[in-house]
């Protein structure tokens, strides 16, 4: 079996190139921050960043100059502030230059679904009357062949060059298990030409095989498996660590000041040298306050007659 275990540095170095279409997914949960930081560290340029919800990681990657185009459905820092680097790159009085391709949540998700399923497009039940249709030529209509005078909007298949996702656990073959909020990770992994998987822990084959319905993505879809503890910080990994809401709240002040933002990137990304250094800088006790009280799933029985 081809060796799939990579260091974070090697995984990004091997599978992400300048100009790639990179889908970095995770819906509020399991956001692959460590991978985004490593892309910044390696000074990758000209990316098309695809992400349903570009948030702080997008702000950082845009500020670092990695991103030419952003394909998205919702860009913001939830209710606690704004992404000023992204806004400066878009707004009329900003420093500009970021190209946008804008969807709604299901529109972009349906693009992943069509890409994964090898079909040219996916019908969606929306978009009629939205001004998005005027600014996004990918939103098109098809007549239903079943009813007179019925049309539906459709979105085209999307097949990113690379999907980057984070999960709680996997085996060495890349069989991925995840729980809590699942996001579009399964769709984007199947849709993409290459998939980089970061996990909180590599577990024994037996753990994965004790619960095969929990495997969200089979190993054959995954090209690189990276063990990367706390790699979703300041986002969270259900059952491993909670969201660092303090960091999210602090971001507006950092992001608003371009100099301060560049200094933050220098200090927390470049100077840490890697995810290990980032964790060291956070400090040994950092995750204590974010450590969950256990709430374990009841077992189910996969047995058969022997």
């Amino acid at each position, binding site marked *: 079996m081809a060796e799939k275990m990579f260091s974070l540095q090697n995984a990004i170095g091997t599978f992400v190139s300048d100009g790639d279409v990179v889908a970095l997914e995770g*819906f*509020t*949960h399991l956001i692959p921050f460590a991978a985004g930081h490593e892309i910044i560290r390696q000074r990758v340029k000209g990316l098309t960043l695809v992400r349903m919800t570009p948030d702080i990681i997008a702000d950082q990657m845009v500020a670092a100059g990695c991103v030419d185009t952003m394909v*998205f*459905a*919702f*860009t*913001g820092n*939830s*209710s*606690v502030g704004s992404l000023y680097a*992204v*806004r400066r790159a*878009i*707004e*009329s*009085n900003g420093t500009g230059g970021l190209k946008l391709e*804008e*969807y*709604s*949540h*299901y*529109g972009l*998700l*349906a693009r992943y*679904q069509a890409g994964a399923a090898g079909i040219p497009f996916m019908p*969606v*039940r*929306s*978009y*009629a*009357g*939205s*001004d*998005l*249709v005027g*600014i996004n030529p990918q939103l098109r*209509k098809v007549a239903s062949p079943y009813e007179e*005078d*019925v*049309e*539906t*909007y459709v979105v085209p298949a999307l097949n990113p060059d690379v999907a980057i996702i984070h999960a709680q656990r996997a085996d060495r073959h890349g069989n991925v298990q995840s*729980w*809590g*909020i*699942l*996001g*579009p990770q*399964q*769709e984007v992994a199947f849709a993409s030409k290459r998939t980089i998987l970061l996990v909180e822990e590599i577990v024994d084959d037996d753990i994965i095989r004790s619960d095969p319905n929990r495997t969200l993505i089979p190993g054959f879809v995954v090209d690189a498996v990276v063990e990367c503890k706390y790699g979703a910080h300041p*986002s*969270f990994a*259900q059952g491993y660590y*909670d*969201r660092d*809401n303090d960091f*999210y709240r602090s971001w507006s002040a950092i992001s608003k000041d371009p100099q301060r933002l560049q200094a933050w990137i220098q200090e927390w990304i470049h100077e840490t040298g890697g995810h290990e250094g980032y964790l060291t800088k956070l400090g040994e006790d950092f995750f204590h306050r974010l450590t*969950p009280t256990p*709430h374990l799933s009841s077992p189910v029985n996969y047995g058969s007659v022997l």
Partner: protein
Amino acid sequence: MTSVIEKATAPASSPAYTVSELLAVVSCRYLQGKRRVFAGIGLPTLAVALAQKSTSPDIEQVYESGVCGAHPPKLPETIADASLATGAETILTMPVLFGYVLQGGWIDVGFLGAAQIDRFGSLNTSVIGPWDAPTVRLPGSGGAIEVMANSQEVFVVMRRHNTTSFVRELDFCTSPSPIAARRADPKVPTRGAGVTTVISELGVFTSDAEGELCLASIHEGVTVEQVREQTGWPVKVLDSVTVTPPPTEEELRLLRDDIDPGRVYLR
């Protein structure tokens, strides 16, 4: 922009209440008889929780993240709170949530917010100014387009009520009302009534048979004239317009003591 009323003037007989409390209570009242509510964290969560504890014990909240039947061990601070998953009845995948639940028509009431709303309930959450060179870039649709297009009806909570938020013409129509949708694409089927209820800091609008948002009630201390002045279109006032009954002591007690004692959303 400053809020027209930061705190409503309390009538002598009732306790003072904040705008958040008022909006939560009024939203709750309009939820009576509804079953499944699609909403984010914040005021809608309070409204649903209050409904559960008062008039609508069977009401359920469905979250965009796929969580249904949440029983968080503590009140979640954000939509991304780990506690929303702890002890939930269901966490659906995104294709199931958006495809089957939303597009499948299982949502009775979708809750939305917006930077701008127009007379027929179309919403702008994308940009102020032109899309390709905006003055202000807003977050975008997220799931709002799907919520508007697929819920049986939509409630909009507008904390700020003024002529830049209640506008004659949207800078950008992100989420069109079914009326706007049918006008643009008559062959694309629509579902639901669109925005039926807008709860603002000044009052409540409900939609008439043509889908136009009409003033149905004004909050205590607000005049109809004030609403007209702060609204960008000529406001149709229902004959039945009343003063919004203020939150009752019981409603406030439930909100303050039972539902959000830490004032996570009531702040």
